[in-house]
């Protein structure tokens, strides 16, 4: 494990069986996550981006061990420096880690039990883990609600009394209630209105600074990722294709898929927008149950050589320091990034 990392995922695999036929036999596997390697350093925000169905959420859920991965290691460094592999643990031995690694859900509607008032929702982790009860619990909940920008007087209300943004705040309060170290934000702002989204992103940043949190930020919106993430990992059909710092990835992508993704980011400035060329990928996203040979991206890649790319699966390698790419020609290609508006401003 890297000495600077808090969490390192090595060769993570998660395959879901596909049943078919009269006897419901396994006829194949959806390779939702197929050999993912990444690491997260303390205090940083790592973005995980990709198209729908590329395995982002599955990766997140494997790390938090909602799923038991098929293969690979999830190395986690505790506050005292000891390292554990979360992958093979059972539910019972995972409990202490579930307190340190928390999940914020995408859908603020389905992730809150509609039959519980806020005080129970936010206080449940505290109650279940026997951290606080009674008056103390209510005080803790009130404090948490205040911290995420909700009025503590509302704690007797039920989720149906809140808007989407407020519900997401409840979800955040719930995730924070156990003083976690690592928070996995699974599309935490995707279901929200743009104006509310900005508020929640700012809240997440403030909380990160205040509680020294580490985020794994799963998203498909590149502008959100660019805003909040320190480093970005790009996924394509269950594999990581590129991992670099946000500025570098946006300015100088080294994988053709990243280049195509970046070209699809809407550009608000009309002057820049006119200069921009969109790269439209041909074909469809491959079926993760039956991925292409060699480099999974080669059928849609405009730089494919038609030989090596078709036969040899490229490994994720470090081309320049801390810039990881899975492409045979990463050094030879000169790809276009986007001029980060942050630099312009």
């Amino acid at each position, binding site marked *: 494990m890297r000495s600077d990392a808090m969490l390192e995922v090595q060769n993570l695999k998660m395959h879901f069986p596909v049943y078919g036929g009269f006897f419901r036999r396994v006829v194949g596997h959806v390779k939702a996550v197929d050999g993912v390697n990444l690491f997260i350093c303390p205090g940083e925000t790592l973005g995980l981006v990709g198209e729908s169905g590329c395995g982002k959420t599955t990766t997140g859920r494997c790390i*938090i061990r*909602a799923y038991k991965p098929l293969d690979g290691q999830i190395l986690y460094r505790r506050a005292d420096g000891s390292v554990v592999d979360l992958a093979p643990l059972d539910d019972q031995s995972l*409990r202490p880690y*579930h*307190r340190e690694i*928390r*999940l914020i*859900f995408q*859908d603020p*509607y*389905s*992730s*809150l*039990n*509609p*039959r519980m*008032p806020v005080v129970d929702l936010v206080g*449940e*982790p505290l109650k*279940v*883990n026997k951290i606080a009860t009674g008056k103390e619990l209510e005080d803790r909940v009130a404090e948490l609600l205040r911290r995420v920008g909700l009025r503590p007087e*509302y704690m*007797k*209300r*039920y989720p*149906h*009394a809140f808007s989407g943004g407020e519900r997401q705040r409840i979800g955040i309060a*719930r995730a924070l209630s156990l003083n976690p170290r690592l928070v996995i934000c699974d599309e935490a702002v995707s279901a929200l209105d743009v104006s509310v989204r900005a508020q929640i992103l700012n809240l997440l940043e403030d909380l990160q600074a205040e509680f020294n949190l580490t985020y794994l930020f799963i998203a498909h919106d590149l502008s959100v990722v660019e805003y909040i993430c320190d480093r970005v990992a790009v996924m394509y059909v269950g594999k990581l294709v590129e991992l670099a710092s946000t500025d570098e990835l946006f300015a100088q992508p080294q994988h053709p898929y990243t280049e195509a993704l970046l070209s699809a980011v809407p550009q608000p400035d009309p002057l820049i927008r006119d200069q921009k060329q969109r790269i439209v990928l041909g074909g469809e996203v491959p079926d993760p149950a039956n991925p292409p040979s060699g480099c999974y991206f080669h059928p849609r890649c405009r730089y494919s050589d038609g030989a090596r790319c078709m036969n040899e699966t490229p490994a994720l390698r470090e081309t320049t320091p801390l810039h990881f790419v899975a492409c045979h020609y990463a050094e030879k290609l000169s790809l276009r990034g986007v001029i980060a508006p942050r630099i312009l401003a």
Partner: protein
Amino acid sequence: MLNDRKQVEREAGGPAVPNNSRSTEEARVLVASQWLLMWRKFRKHRLAMVGGTITIVVYLVVLFAEFLAPFPSNAFSSQHTYAPPQPLHLFDRTAEGLRFSPYVNGYSITINQAALKREFVVDKASKVPVRLFVHGTPYKLLGLFDADLHLIGPSVYDEDPTRIIIPMYLLGADRLGRDVLSRTIYGTRISMTLGLVGVALSFVIGLTLGGVSGFYGGWVDNTIQRVIELLRSIPTIPLWMGLAAALPSDWTPLQVFLGITILLSLIGWTGLARVVRGRFLALRTEDFILSARLDGNSTARTIRVHMIPAFASHIIASLTLAIPSMILSETALSFLGLGLRPPIVSWGVLLKEAQNIRAVATAPWLLLPGIAVIITVLALNFLGDGLRDAADPYGR
């Protein structure tokens, strides 16, 4: 949950100050628990409210059958076989004018020598006084308190509780001169209890097997579902007939009653098991269940605190809808002579009296217990419908 609700009502239910009544009302909705929201939704369902009221009335009849029935269920009068109903007159025309003094007209009995048949004609001249809250045949109220008060009855009772000396057949008499009204009231007790007990029993089986099926899935689920399909594919009446025939004939009426209940629920659980399984399957993939698991909840606590409240309302609705089918099954079985047997009085047993054409032609009032069945089954169905509609107050 019930405590929650009470608490909510206590907190929010105080007298609303007129100028902020709107905000009070709003606040009430915001802190309203599931059950309170359900009640609000249910209240808007007119037919269900009517059904619910009738159901409550029917169960009150079950509790206070002895008080409501003028006669014991086995009281007979050999002189009044197949006596027709005597209309109840509430007001008596006397010298001083119209007075409240309920009475029924007596019968004049002639014997048709050709047919050797007793013929009853309601005799307008004779008046049998009827009293409200009359002291009649003694009984034990709710099985606990000695009482002899009857809501309505003739002014005179015989010493022998099994005799009717003064005829007061508001809904007519059967072939032994027993009061159809009293027997229908006593029949309510057996039929409704059997429905409840049967549903409770099938609920236990259904919840267990359906829960196991939905929670564990896989081959367990497959096996249970195939068993359910098999059970459902067997025609019910022949199956019941076979099983009922297997009940020993020397059993006491109570044993027969329990036997029939078990028999009905052995088939009745399948529907409930499916409902429970469906809810479990739907809930298993919900984010808030995953979230509860990640919070450190044990499986047992997740089921108890998060899953059961989420489908309890649906289960209650299904249970309500299952009671009428139990009642109908019992009625059908007893009508065929395979279910309950006299001296137990149930609606099915009463309807068996009306099995032959002669009885129906000469004494159509013997079919009146059938109307009780129809009203009760309809009321329970409407109630169940309303509950089902209100079961998910968060439906978007």
